[in-house]
């Protein structure tokens, strides 16, 4: 998985100094750009927090409540799905495929639909928080439930106990570190989901305040909200790490024992694909019928099909927007991966710097995209640069954190071996640390696919007004729901296919670099 719990470095000075430097730079930038209504420095942010303290506290509380509920539901769903996948191995690929497709649904489009289904209240906030959380936890659990040394299972069987005991005594505890890792990734995502949910019409909350602040040119307030959201997300991240350590779950262990019996065919065959497509269509129609959703806005697959087939102009509108979005997503995605991995490599040759950077990277990656997107566009302008940067930043921090963590897991004995030949740092990097980083890097590459599309469409929606994000948001004024559902379909299919593609690549590489991690 991309994230693992990270123990507080025994020396807290490097991160502290780095944080102080960052705050200093932030304040400097804010002072330089004063009067442009772009940056607000730490001083202004503290001022805004002090001035509107009780309002911010109440609003954060409301959003946190939705996020926490959604987080609980999402992780509950993940546990159920992972349990099902384990109990019914034949259905695993179907479950995983469906889980992925639903995870790839764009927030911009699902939000309003959820609002119509739930009406007034917290329904959409909670649901989006759950949707933002469940998939990563599901993946972590799937790896975790399988990351059981064969000897442990043999031990249970040698006492004549069955699969249930196996699950309770061995698999559950073996998967705890992975579950914790899933919770850590999920916590900031849940908060983001709750904030986006508030955009669909909420009475109160941090999301509501952020819209108001952005529109009202209240730069101090906008930055204060971004800071609070980031702080809450970071605290949640650390909290679950701490909880994991309290429960005795260290970072998920790297298993180096062969597990051949789990390594059936690796491909996701045509049959699986067909099954997933049928299931998605079935759920699409079934859910709409079950909730009795009005055909005015809840378009069925057949509506979308006839919309796309009937008029070439419809396809053109969609494709234009699609390419526009992809032309920003792909460079941002690649840049984010390259910068994240690149900086990790630079940092690992400077261990002190790395100790400082890891906690910061983890804190910064928790900043919700809805609050940062407009800030970046403000700073970088509305051209492609702004959106590409947002996508890159969205991917940069998780990649950096995962790669640093991956390299930290270079086996100690291997490093000793290199020491006995007085190997140069470059040799150590090329022959030991980079290969050790590969699984973590590839996992980020995969998880970054939905994040990149989310970041791009969010930026387009909130800031630049171009591409798929804007197209979907515009449905509110045009009521062209066929177009909206076509866009949802195209984005979900794109994200799922790209994800699957990266996964294939990952498996291919993992076979070489870490066959033990091929559990999913």
């Amino acid at each position, binding site marked *: 998985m991309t994230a693992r719990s990270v123990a507080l470095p025994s020396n807290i000075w490097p991160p502290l100094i780095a944080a102080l430097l960052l705050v200093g730079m932030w304040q400097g930038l804010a002072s330089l750009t004063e009067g442009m209504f772009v940056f607000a420095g730490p001083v202004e942010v503290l001022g805004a927090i002090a001035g509107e303290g009780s309002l911010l506290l109440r609003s954060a509380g409301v959003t946190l409540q939705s996020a926490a509920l959604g987080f609980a539901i999402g992780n509950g769903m993940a546990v159920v799905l992972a349990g099902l996948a384990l109990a019914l191995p034949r259905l695993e690929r179907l479950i995983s495929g469906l889980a992925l497709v639903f995870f790839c649904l764009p927030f911009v489009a699902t939000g309003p639909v959820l609002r119509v289904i739930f009406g007034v209240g917290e329904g959409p906030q909670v649901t989006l928080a759950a949707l933002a959380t469940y998939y990563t936890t599901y993946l972590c659990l799937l790896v975790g439930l399988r990351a059981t040394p064969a000897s442990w299972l043999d031990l249970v069987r040698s006492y004549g106990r069955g699969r249930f005991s196996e699950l309770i005594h061995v698999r559950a505890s073996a998967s705890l570190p992975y579950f914790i890792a899933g919770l850590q990734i999920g916590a900031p995502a849940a908060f983001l989901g709750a904030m986006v949910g508030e955009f669909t019409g909420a009475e109160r909350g941090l999301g509501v305040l952020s819209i108001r602040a952005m529109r009202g040119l209240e730069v101090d307030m906008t930055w204060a909200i971004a800071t609070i959201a980031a702080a809450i997300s970071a605290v949640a991240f650390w909290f679950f790490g701490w909880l994991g350590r309290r429960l005795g779950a260290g970072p998920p262990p790297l298993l*180096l*024992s*062969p597990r051949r019996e789990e390594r059936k065919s690796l491909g996701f065959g045509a049959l699986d694909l067909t099954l997933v497509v049928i299931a998605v269509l079935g759920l699409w129609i079934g859910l709409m019928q079950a909730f009795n959703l009005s055909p005015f806005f809840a378009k069925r697959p057949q509506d979308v099909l006839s919309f796309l087939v009937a008029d070439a102009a419809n396809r053109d509108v969609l494709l234009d927007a699609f390419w526009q979005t992809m032309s920003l997503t792909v460079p941002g995605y690649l840049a984010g991966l390259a910068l994240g991995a690149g900086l990790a490599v630079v940092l690992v040759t400077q261990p002190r710097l790395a100790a400082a950077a890891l906690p910061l990277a983890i804190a910064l990656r928790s900043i919700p995209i809805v609050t940062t997107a407009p800030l970046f566009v403000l700073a970088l302008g509305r051209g492609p640069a702004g959106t590409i940067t947002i996508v890159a930043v969205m991917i940069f921090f998780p990649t950096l954190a995962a790669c640093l963590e991956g390299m930290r897991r270079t*086996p100690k*004995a*291997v490093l*000793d*071996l*290199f*020491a*006995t*030949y*007085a*190997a140069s740092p470059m*040799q150590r990097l090329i*022959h*030991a640390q980079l*290969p050790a980083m*590969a699984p973590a890097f590839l996992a980020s590459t995969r998880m970054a696919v939905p994040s990149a599309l989310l970041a791009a469409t969010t930026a387009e929606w909130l800031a630049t007004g171009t591409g798929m994000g804007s197209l979907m948001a515009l449905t509110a004024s045009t009521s062209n729901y066929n177009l909206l559902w076509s866009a949802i379909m195209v984005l979900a299919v794109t994200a799922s296919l790209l994800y699957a593609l990266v996964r294939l690549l990952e498996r291919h590489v993992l076979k*070489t*670099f*870490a*066959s*033990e991690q091929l559990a999913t």
Partner: protein
Amino acid sequence: MPDPLASRPPRVSCDGVEKTFWLGGDAIAAVGPLDVVFEPGKTTALVGPSGCGKSTLLRLIAGIETPSEGAITIGGATPAEVTKAAGLAFAFQDAALLPWLTVRQNVALAFKLARRAPDARRVSDLIDLVGLKQFADARPAELSGGMRQRAAIARCLVTEPGLLLLDEPFGAVDELTRTRLNAELPALWQERGTTTLLVTHSIAEAAALSDRILVFSPRPARIVGDFAGARHDPRARAGLIEAVAKALASEAELVS
């Protein structure tokens, strides 16, 4: 700088070597003080209770750790100079194979790390010698523990270092293979003229392979027994084994 490999095989000397680790504010003496000289071209077995600091001594000599007090010289050079010249090789207890490389690549890695042109022929020969011919293109995850240790030994020997540091190299090797390796490998390193330090649990192995056996005390490691080995004299082995075992047992009593 003098050539750190000028004397081959090298004499290894430890002068007042001490190693102290710090664990949460507590000083833990792991080694020494220790004064000992390992003669060139000789094989010395180090035996002692588990966790007594034998491995730490090897790591000090290999330059992985630096002594808290005293100095170590290898053929007149420091461990750092020797490692830079790839003058020593270390066989780790857990083999330390790179999981993403095949056996062949792992063995050949030693050439890369020693900054020398790889000798594919020699790599193959050594893989054959340790009995891994059929597994040359397997990855470590596909090997048993003993097979991994054999691959690690092949990697140590492939660059023909003047100093071999072997930390329980046969710990996980099965008895049959162990006997064969015990018969073949020492010949290999001894004919090339290699100073060898061998940490082992097996007194019989120590007696059969070495020119000298040092018995260590519980932590911090100090020499409490110094026996001539019985490498060339199979008939003397039984008596030697008994004497070493007795020395070890008295150390164990000291602990309890």
